[in-house]
């Protein structure tokens, strides 16, 4: 697997962490940016495999959770600063978003979530003559 490869991550509608999955050992750092079109959420998930990340959107809440496995189980550890174990972050947005159009991808240890804003629906005016 190439390190530069972008891996799409499914965003599951209505999915929330199961009981027991909700407790987190650590909180990955996050940047959130907002544009006129939507929000971009960038989560640091170094060394996390694509199959160890879950993304769910339920009742306006976007949740990212999973597990970061430790490498080198047989090694003798001298010092350790990197976090591992179960992680979880959840977000709400200040304007309504299109929950079923959220895109997620994992690349170089960064999970990027693109969250489009919900557009106000335009009602066509009918001319009465």
């Amino acid at each position, binding site marked *: *697997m190439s*390190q*530069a490869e972008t891996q799409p991550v499914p965003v599951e509608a209505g999915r929330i962490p199961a009981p027991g999955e909700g407790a*987190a*050992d*650590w*909180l990955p*750092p*996050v*940047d*959130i*940016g*907002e*544009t*006129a079109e939507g*929000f*971009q959420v*960038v989560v*640091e*998930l*170094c*060394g*996390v*495999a694509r199959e160890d990340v879950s993304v769910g959107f339920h009742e306006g809440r976007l949740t990212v959770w999973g597990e970061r496995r430790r*490498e*080198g189980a*047989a*090694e*003798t*550890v*001298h*010092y*350790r*600063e*990197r*976090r591992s174990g179960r992680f979880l972050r959840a977000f709400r947005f200040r304007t309504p978003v299109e929950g079923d159009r959220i895109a997620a991808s994992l*690349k*170089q*240890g*960064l999970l990027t979530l693109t969250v489009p804003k919900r557009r106000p629906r335009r009602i066509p005016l009918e001319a009465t003559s």
Partner: protein
Amino acid sequence: MRLIWSPTRDLLQLHARLGRALGDPLVRRWARRTQREATMPPLDFSETPECFVIRVDLPGLRKDDVEVTVAGGQLQIAGEAPASNEPDATVESLRLERFRGPFRRIVPLPRQANSAEIRATLERGVLTLEVLKTLSAGGRRIEIG
């Protein structure tokens, strides 16, 4: 917002805050740099019977963004962590928790490390350095002639 208490980080943050409180730009710069160099990016150090293993979290960095050098029994990892969003008038930052900017970590290598034999890989935002041990690391029995 951190759930896990880290005495080192708290102390370094307090240290940086004190520097800011003093208002001296030199103190402030030094405090910020000390904080970064001491804790960012996070690093693990371990060993196997054959080699020493150093792992560093470098999210979003490509191999051309990182420089690993070895000199005088020290390993140095340096580079610049990119921001998630380019400074742009159309993007409003709502949260900025990720570390960005220049960084440098220095790792003194143990005496058995063979600095000529280092293997470096960068995958999924993790830099892994494997430093082979010199052959005599395990000790050698000297036969009495």
